[in-house]
């Protein structure tokens, strides 16, 4: 019995391992190429060897050369994504709790409306906001990037948090309320501490979405000292006019992406739980 099963699973095993190998190559090869290109010398940028030889940090130092101002762009990205994440969590936690725990009329309609807002094309919101921000002098400010970012970050966070709150057993609050807590106290003292992992995961997902944002930052800012990292990279110009400085861009891409990849690898289990519960990018 066990022998036949072993025979039956051997080709299947090979198929599975081959498949896993394919997935690994698919996901990592382009990223690997970015890293390899970042560590080549600019003079052999177009080499096709699998490893940079000789290994060089020239591209990395070029990214941070004073004229480029990439350090400032990273700081801008950090401010915009960080503030967006914090605001989103402060506003979104209470809404998510209501959707997960309270019974009220139109609950499904409310949930549908919130999820629907995240589906709206960014450009439909951007055109009027661009006109508005031009009028009130908000162009080239942090708030001109943070406020529109809430349009996609807030529904995403509410959706994820709702899923996390719903997974927590309701008996927890009921017990706290029997012991004399009000609903508010039960939320603060029992639910919130226990939901901390979920809130943390939501924070990561929201931060990554805000950090990767492009079209808002591109539209709202034309001053190079205010642009975020993603916009800055796309606008790097080479020393030779028409030449696109790919080496510098790949190095900057590595700098922008590696922190995210590290965070993602550290918390992959939780992030996957969050992504699949929310179902939204």
């Amino acid at each position, binding site marked *: 019995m066990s022998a036949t099963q072993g025979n039956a699973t051997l080709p299947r095993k090979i198929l599975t391992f081959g498949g896993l190998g394919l997935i690994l190559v698919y996901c990592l090869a*382009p*990223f690997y190429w970015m890293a390899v290109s970042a560590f080549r010398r600019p003079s052999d940028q177009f080499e096709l060897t699998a490893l940079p030889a000789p290994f060089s940090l020239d591209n990395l130092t070029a990214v941070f050369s004073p004229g480029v101002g990439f350090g400032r762009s990273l700081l801008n990205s950090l401010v915009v994504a960080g503030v967006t994440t914090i605001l989103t969590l402060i*506003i979104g936690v209470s809404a998510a709790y209501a959707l997960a725990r309270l019974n009220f009329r139109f609950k499904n309609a409310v949930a*549908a409306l919130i999820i629907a807002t995240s589906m709206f094309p*960014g450009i439909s919101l951007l055109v009027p906001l661009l006109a508005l921000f031009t009028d009130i002098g908000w162009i080239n400010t942090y708030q001109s990037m943070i406020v529109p970012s809430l349009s996609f970050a807030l529904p995403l966070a509410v959706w994820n948090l709702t899923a996390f709150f719903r997974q927590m057993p309701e008996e927890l609050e009921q017990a706290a309320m*029997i012991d004399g807590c009000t609903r508010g106290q039960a939320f603060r003292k029992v639910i919130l501490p226990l939901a901390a992992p979920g809130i943390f995961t939501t924070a990561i997902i929201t931060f990554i979405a805000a950090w990767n944002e492009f079209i808002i930052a591109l539209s709202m800012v034309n001053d190079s000292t205010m642009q975020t990292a993603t916009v800055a990279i796309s606008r790097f110009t080479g020393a030779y006019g028409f030449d696109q400085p790919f080496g510098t861009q790949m190095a900057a891409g590595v700098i922008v992406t590696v922190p995210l990849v590290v965070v993602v690898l550290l918390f992959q289990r939780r992030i996957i739980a969050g992504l699949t519960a929310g179902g939204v990018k």
Partner: protein
Amino acid sequence: MTAVVRRARGATSGAGRLAAALLSPTFVVLGLVVGYPLVAALRESVFREGTDLDESGFIVEGSRFVGVDNYTAIFAGESAARFWNAFGNTTVFTVITVALEVVIGVAMALVMHHAIRWRGVVRASILVPWAVPTAVSALLWRWIFQADGVANALIGRQVLWTTEGWQAKFAVILADVWKTAPFVGLLVLAGLQIIPNDVYEAARVDGASPWRQFWRITLPLVKPALLVAVLFRVLDALRMFDLPFVLIGSRKESVETLSMVAFDEASSLRFGPAAAYATILFVYVAVTALVFVRLLGADVIGAARERSRK
């Protein structure tokens, strides 16, 4: 005991008010950053800016009411060719990328579902394309698709990928599929994991082949998760901007999407036409979402609830 019952009852009757209080910050913010712009876009789309001559030949400055002129210009007037091209590109990109992403994503999910060892490593690696910013991935693919880049070296030909033509479309589709197929794979994997194993055992006892099991059991049972994933991908692909903008460039006929046309108009300060394009894209997205939810029965809320319950 009675006190508990009273408190519990009090909580239900006050739930509506409490819910309103808890939800109001979110609704105020969404009203400001989503509701207001949608209405404003509709209003702006019936105005046009710039210097113009009125009927009696006087010069008029600033924006003036033009009714549906912006829309007629888009559908049938001077901008019609550009609009229909962008509409076609948007639709073609959406259909092809989502179809490929579903096939590749389902295949990835099946492989991961059957793997016992290495599953953690592969699941982690699958998050890498998702975590790379789209703008950075566009640059990465632009680098790969350079004339003397690695893509041409691998196929041993000289294709100018990032110039106008079918090859530019292909480059955009490939880059988009790379980034998002793994994400579809994750969502499908979550759907696969709730299928009870005894269903397959029963099928095996009845002598169903693996192929038949896939079509008759796996696919129908994973359909709710898959439909939601497809809905999100379709709506996301319809607003595609970063990738063609950075990978190929703006004002490139072969890859220009509706978002790109609207952006281009707005950045040349033609807010009226830009708002009209944006509104048309919004209607396109909304209609598509409605069709998905009504005709195909994509149950977004139910599917999420189902998954968070397990």
